[in-house]
């Protein structure tokens, strides 16, 4: 469903992605792991057309994103929901307006209906009574979860999660992991998730892929990843500073 074909991207002469090949199949959850600054967020932004590659392709159901005209690109983007690493809540709007924003923009639903939908999704992420708070009045973890509620409120086909559980306590993390899992199992949503949190990765992943120095160096099921003999992957998942990975 999502195919990345030899994706390359640099910023001002510094190559961040050096030929990424990756496929996400319909209905699966693919988790990308990789060090800080390895280009995971950059990679994800290519998938939804926020960034465009220097070379290589991103294909969604066969269509090359870079070739789409603006209206088609917009239509394609609306099939996605994205959870940003830093939530990216609209800080001029309160929580329910954030969660209901896309519905208010694209549907004829009345305010009351949108409010109810927002409340429903906020309950799903464990925030039943923050409807009227402003983003600045929320903790980091709460913002993250409002961002998640906003992403799923439009019932997208594909979800992109950029570190959805970072900064959450273990119990709340588990709530979110179960939610992500159930979205995939019950609604068949296709997901691409970035995380540093190995507990979360093993919990939700159908397959995992590791990004290192601009390339995908390993893909496999969680069991295969756990049993890998690739020294980089082994070091990363064991969280050790001894090994071939250069820190930073």
């Amino acid at each position, binding site marked *: 469903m999502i195919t990345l074909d030899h994706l390359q991207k640099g910023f001002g002469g510094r190559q961040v992605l050096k030929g990424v090949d990756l496929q996400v199949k319909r209905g699966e959850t693919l988790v990308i792991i990789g060090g800080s600054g390895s280009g995971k967020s950059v990679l994800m932004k290519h998938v939804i057309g926020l960034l465009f590659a220097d070379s290589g392709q991103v294909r969604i159901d066969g269509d090359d994103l870079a070739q789409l005209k603006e209206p088609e690109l917009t239509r394609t983007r609306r099939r996605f929901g994205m959870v940003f690493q830093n939530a990216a809540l609209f800080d001029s709007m309160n929580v329910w307006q954030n969660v209901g*924003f896309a519905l208010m923009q*694209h549907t004829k639903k009345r305010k009351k209906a949108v409010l109810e939908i927002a409340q429903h999704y906020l309950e799903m992420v464990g925030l039943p009574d923050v409807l009227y708070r402003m983003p600045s009045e929320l903790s980091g973890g709460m913002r993250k979860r409002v961002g998640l509620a906003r992403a799923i409120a439009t019932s997208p086909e594909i979800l992109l999660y950029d570190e959805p559980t970072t900064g959450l306590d273990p119990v709340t993390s588990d709530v979110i992991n179960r939610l992500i899992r159930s979205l995939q199992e019950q609604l068949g949503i296709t997901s691409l998730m970035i995380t540093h949190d190995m507990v979360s990765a093993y919990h939700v992943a159908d397959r995992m892929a590791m990004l290192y120095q601009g390339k995908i160096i390993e893909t496999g099921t969680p069991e295969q990843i756990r049993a890998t003999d690739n020294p980089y992957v082994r070091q990363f998942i064991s969280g050790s500073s001894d090994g071939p990975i250069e820190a930073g």
Partner: protein
Amino acid sequence: MWGVIVATVDAPAQVSWALRLPYWVGSVVLGVLREVGRLSIYLYQSIRLGVVPPYRIRDIFRQMEVLGVNTMPVVLITALFTGMVLALQSHTGFSRFSAESLVGTVVALSVVRELGPVLTGLITAGRAGASIAAELGTMKVTEQIDALVTMGVSPVKYLMVPRIIAGVVMLPILTVFADVVGIAGGYLVGVEMLDANPTVYISRTFDFLEVADVVGGLIKAAVFGGLIALVSAAQGFNTRGGAEGVGRATTGAVVLSSMAVLISNYFLTMAMAS
């Protein structure tokens, strides 16, 4: 302002100044062209997206309110003192050839044709331009603009167009206030301080003032309003690199939109004169 433009081009290190000068000139030219090109694209998109529904009337009114509240007090004070100083200066000048009776005329014409719209434009560039760039720049660096895009909402349509329309509508309104207060300031000095005859002063004020003067000034103001919003929003959208980047975008917006006001003022005046 050169800083704003040149900052996008890296200077070659370790080159003699004789070589760096043409490089610098070239960079400035390229920078200006790039900026003009970028603005043309935004302008084109704004018009194309602005004419199709939804029209977001509420957003437009909100922006008009923000712009008015931000700018009105400063505009009024500036206009008042400008009208006053104009009366004082022209009185000094005209008394040398006993033409004091023309003070009212000069104040009215200068304020309505030139100072009203231009001062209003410059004040708006400073206040509203800065706040537009800071707001949109913050949205950019905190990925709120990206979030809009992922939800299929065009930032140009949603954020830029309402601000441009608000600018085009509000600047003439602010200018009308500036004109009235400026002329009143002139009257205050002319009649109360310099003892001109009130009836004569008033008739001299309006005898030579034509509708075209007023309309021309208001057209200028409308153009300034649109330009300021366009330039400042574009600066916001192109912000990079955290809080520091927002600071840069804000100063850039003030400098560039002030320049846009002054430069377009000349050409508009020239076009209207012919």
